[in-house]
């Protein structure tokens, strides 16, 4: 396959940045999207040019490091991570536009690499449980209903890739925040801090300059882990409950 790539190039955080067009030839349909970028980069290095910087780590769809907007869709046309997207999802001769996640909270470091530290700070604000000391409790000491455990687990599969923010027309990080609030809120271990957690995490979310959620649902549609949209409603429920009881003060 021969592909024309339009890639966002930006030398550093203060550079203005621009789209640059590259031809990538002899692309195998079995290559992953990142492997195709590797091929381009090897060529750029040989030609003495700066390779295109992009984030990646496990390349198995479980770490959440990779992620770019491909033809206007976070992680591209398949509902998966960019590393698990293959070139067979495109056709020979396609022109593909590649852009970094666009959000004030995710400033571009270089080319396609953004700083997602805002997510870490949201987790630091309340995405944890108080650590009990002593020996590990018996596995059956605090029973969890199957449905609750499943839901907690579904929410816990969030890998923090940031596609929800990238896809949101408001650049809101609500799905990410809601996934963690739901994960911990469904389990007995998460109860002591439950009311304070939701308020602190949402406050941090807003402080990081993410936009507000308007329930459009693009986040859940592009989420490679299928975090359900209703986690946001669960967060809202917890938040309204917490604010009205005043427990968060």
């Amino acid at each position: 396959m021969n592909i024309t790539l339009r890639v966002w190039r930006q030398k550093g955080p203060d550079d203005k940045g621009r789209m640059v067009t590259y031809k990538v030839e002899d692309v195998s349909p079995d290559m992953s999207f990142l492997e195709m970028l590797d091929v381009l980069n090897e060529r750029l290095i040989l030609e003495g040019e700066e390779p295109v910087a992009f984030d990646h780590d496990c390349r198995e769809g479980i770490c959440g490091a990779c992620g770019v907007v491909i033809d206007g869709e976070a992680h591209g046309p398949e509902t998966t991570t960019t590393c698990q997207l293959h070139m067979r999802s495109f056709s020979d001769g396609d022109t593909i536009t590649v852009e970094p996640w666009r959000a004030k909270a995710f400033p571009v470091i270089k080319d396609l690499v953004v700083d997602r530290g805002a997510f870490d700070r949201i987790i630091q604000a309340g995405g944890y449980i108080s650590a009990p000391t002593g020996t590990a409790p018996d596995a059956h000491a605090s029973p969890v209903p199957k449905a609750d455990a499943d839901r907690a687990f579904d929410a816990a599969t969030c890998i923090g890739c940031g596609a929800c923010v990238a896809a949101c027309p408001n650049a809101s990080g609500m799905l990410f925040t809601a996934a963690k609030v739901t994960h911990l809120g469904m389990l007995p271990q998460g109860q002591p801090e439950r009311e304070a957690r939701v308020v602190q995490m949402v406050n941090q979310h807003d402080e990081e300059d993410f936009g507000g959620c308007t329930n459009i649902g693009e986040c859940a549609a592009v989420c490679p882990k299928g975090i359900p949209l209703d986690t946001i409603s669960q967060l809202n429920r917890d938040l309204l409950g917490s604010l009205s009881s005043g427990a968060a003060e």
Partner: protein
Amino acid sequence: MALKSAMAVTGVILVLFLIAHMYGNLNAFAGQEAFDTYSHHLRELGEPMLPHGGFLWIMRVVLLASVLIHTYAAVALWRRAGRARPVRYQVTKRVQRSYSSYTMRYGGIMIALFTVFHVLHLTTNTIHPGGRSESPYERMVAGFQPEFWYVTLFYVAAVIAVGFHLRHGIWSALATLGINRQSRQRSLNIIATVIAAALTIGFLLTPLSVTFGLVE
């Protein structure tokens, strides 16, 4: 969050008002007397506990406050969204979002402008195509005559905009108030569509019936 809750609650108030407003409009099909009496009774509602027109003024204050809060919250969230994405994408694609969800803000502006016109037209009668009248029924019938087709057209466009606005708005308000669950998501969306469609059709019936001579 306070903004979004305010948006949702005031939105619900406005939807409830629209349902009552549509019921009032449909009285037109029962003739001039029924329509004018209904309008008159609105002013007598709550008497003698309330002064003449007292109920109506309470409603007006509540509605105006709702509209102002709704608008303020919308503008604040809009500005926040703008700040949250200072560099825009070169290519964007709708994955699943509906037409109504991405026209909320522009639709809202159109509805606000329409509401001003609508109040000047049929409430205060400052704008009076087809002549002034003391009878609300005559004001309405005169305003939607075929020769004022542009007035009717504006109403039709605005009512359709309201329909789209409600389609996403009702769903969004319910989700913001924490009512959405995965098992209910489909039902909530259907409820939003049904209410939006019912209000759109209900509001279109009266002016179009006048224009096409079914109500005289």
